[in-house]
């Protein structure tokens, strides 16, 4: 069996890749994809910890995280579409004012 610590390190690496994507990329869609990477890293932590403790709760929380991720993707992409209609751009720096 693979020890829990290795799963946690893999999850940490994935989470950092997601964080890096949010910081470095200048494209709203890529930023949303990076958020999905971070959510998946957390899911891996939950499942691995649930396996190590022999508990069902890890898998159930992953179920809820996926639901929230789906809702977040739907609302986030709707906002992206609305923003794109106004500015014809996906660069977050183009949306610095609250009202135009």
């Amino acid at each position: 069996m693979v020890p829990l610590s290795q799963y946690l390190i893999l999850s940490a690496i994935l989470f950092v890749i997601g964080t890096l994507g949010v910081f470095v990329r200048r494209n709203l869609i890529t930023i949303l994809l990076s958020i999905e990477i971070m959510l998946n890293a957390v899911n891996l932590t939950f499942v691995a910890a649930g396996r190590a403790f022999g508990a069902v709760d890890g898998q159930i929380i992953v179920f809820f995280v996926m639901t929230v991720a789906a809702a977040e993707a739907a609302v986030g992409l709707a906002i992206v579409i609305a923003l794109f209609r106004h500015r014809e751009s996906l660069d977050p720096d183009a949306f610095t004012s609250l009202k135009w």
Partner: protein
Amino acid sequence: MPDQILFYLLGGLAVVASVLVIGQRNPIHSVLLLIASFAGLSGLYVLLQAPFVAVIQIIIYAGAIMVLFLFVVMLLNVGREDTDVDEQSPVFVHRVSMRVGALLAGLLVVELVWALASAGTLGGVFGPMSQAPPAVTSVRTIGHALFTDYAFAFEVTSILILVAMVGAVVLARREAK
């Protein structure tokens, strides 16, 4: 040992695909690579004896959420990033603010690995999983817990999805002039 090899293969697939997601200019390639990353994670869930999570990972993430992303990318029809700075420089070389962000992300990985490495020497649950309790693989057990212990959270989730649906429709609607 086959477990260990599979772990490195699937983990490597997930990490490499995720890095390429960040490194791609074309959003469609990013979305497709993220599906590959999710496939690797799904394999890891099978390795962790969580087949239910592995299947919903493929069905919900790769099947539903990523198709939504792909649909929006094609709807907006943006092939590449459209800022001048991005076109001229490689993906990871950017303005000062982004370097600070990248530095923060690097610090985060150092901190996480350090914390996990120091926890790893403690043994206990962080040690080999051979003495771990038996895994919960049955969908029946998961469903039972979901509809008894987590019944309230489950019902709240349905309201969340309703709100998200209405919100998405209201936000993306074209305003009547």
